[in-house]
């Protein structure tokens, strides 16, 4: 059985700064953490490759500054990549590196194929729009024009993430952190994306609210079979959600494996330190 990944990422690189002769060559460069001590260029993502398969949750762990969020921003076209290839398993896009596509096509992919949930709801929501208006915004971007059907979809989604309908016209800035995060998830799901990116979605929420959001994510996977990349520095979150896990350090993937294997038999020194600090 040969299984095709739904998202195929090869050698994604993202650097901040021009680089110099000392750090230009990948094999020769000697970085301090992830930056060049001579010119100060930050190599935030270094040759990150991954495959995301249909219906799976891929976990990405690593400390702050390891490049997890930068990678997500690159994948979601929030930030331009320095180099790299991404392929989507989609008939219209076969064999095309989507980083090379026009802005218009990238927007199409963002609006139709991807959903994104940011750590900070401010990035994902318009705080002065109503909650249902936020969902409608995404639906309009995806080409919907029928107001009553958009309203019905919005209500169904808000109900699904347990936002009381009588508050659907309220602005998310009036909501608690957990509620904002749930509105963000509803918005991300509104265009039925096959791929969902979740960036530290439970960070900063208190435990019971965190549990609520995690249960919602798990349910979404079970019911709709959406493929997800979940970035978190919290191993407990990864343990609960992910089938497979990648560990990032200083911009590079240093280890990947089955989640239980990463937790019980980590191979790299950094991963061992990370796992032992959990226990």
């Amino acid at each position, binding site marked *: *059985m040969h*299984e095709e990944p739904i998202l195929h990422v090869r050698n994604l690189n993202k650097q901040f700064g021009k680089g110099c002769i000392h750090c230009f060559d990948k094999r020769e460069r000697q970085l301090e953490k992830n930056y060049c001590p001579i010119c100060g260029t930050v190599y935030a993502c270094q040759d990150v490759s991954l495959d995301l*398969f249909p219906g*799976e949750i891929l976990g990405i762990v690593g400390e702050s500054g390891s490049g997890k969020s930068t990678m997500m921003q690159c994948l979601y076209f929030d930030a331009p990549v320095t180099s790299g290839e991404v392929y989507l398993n989609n008939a219209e896009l076969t064999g095309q590196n989507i980083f090379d596509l026009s802005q218009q096509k990238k927007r199409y992919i963002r609006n139709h194929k991807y959903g994104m949930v940011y750590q900070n709801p401010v990035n994902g929501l318009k705080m002065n729009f109503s909650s249902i208006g936020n969902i409608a915004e995404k639906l309009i971007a995806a080409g919907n024009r029928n107001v009553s059907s958009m309203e019905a979809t919005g209500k169904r989604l808000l109900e699904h993430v347990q936002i009381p309908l009588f508050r659907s016209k309220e602005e998310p800035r009036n909501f608690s952190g957990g509620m904002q995060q749930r509105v963000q998830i509803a918005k991300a799901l509104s265009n039925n994306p096959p791929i969902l990116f979740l960036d530290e979605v439970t960070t900063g929420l208190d435990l019971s609210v965190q*549990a609520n959001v995690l*249960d919602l994510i*798990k349910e979404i996977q*079970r019911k709709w079979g959406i493929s997800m990349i979940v970035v978190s520095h919290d191993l407990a979150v990864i343990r*609960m959600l992910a*089938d*497979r896990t990648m560990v990032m350090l200083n911009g590079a993937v240093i280890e*990947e*494996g*089955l989640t*239980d*294997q990463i937790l*019980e*038999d980590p*191979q*790299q*020194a950094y991963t*061992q*330190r990370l796992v*032992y600090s959990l226990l």
Partner: protein
Amino acid sequence: MTMLQVKDFGKRFTIHHLGKTRQAVEHIHFSLEQGGFLGIVGKSGSGKSTILKSIYRTYYPDTGNIIYDSAHYGLIDLTQATEREILYLRKHEIGYVSQFLDVMPRTTSRELVETAILEMGETEETAKLEAEKVLTHFELDQKLWDHYPNTFSGGEKLRLNIAMATVKKPRLLLLDEPTASLDQQSKMKVREMIEKLKASGTTLVGIFHDIEFMDGLCDHVFDMQISQVGLVKEGVMHES
């Protein structure tokens, strides 16, 4: 038909911050026919669980090969299989039961068993019926079906654990001291279930700390102490 073949298997752990390595097991050889039951015996710390966890790939493979005859992939070396292949096998063919229940939090025991069945591709209706059947078999009090297992007693957790694994009727079932803290009656229930699985063709590898439980259940034993000097003692349990 040979279901599982372990060839010159070894596992070494490296603990970086201590700068040390530890060879947990080495030169392990055994093979197991379909429907066979191999019991692994040996002192604690001799590496019994290491073997089981390596077959299930909770441990990263080191040296040697573990060839498994899969219904889906044919002969497959579990030490070389991709993570996706292992995940498929865990869902459909290979089960693992330990004495610890490690499940999704905030999920009722009924939902846990149902999910295990749904993963196999069964309908929701079948899942519901089968789940009730197996929970009844393991005499898990009906009042507990809609409770979260974190409030269960040790024995209740174990029975749920075994229910979740056996309900999938796995081709290969790995048992890592699943009866460790059970009372006599629960043990008999587990034994009954194992016998039933065995009769239906499931191949089993198990570690049990009470030898009595294994008596008459295992076809072969693998003695860790002898294997460590390179010999494998294989024979019928009650003759040895």
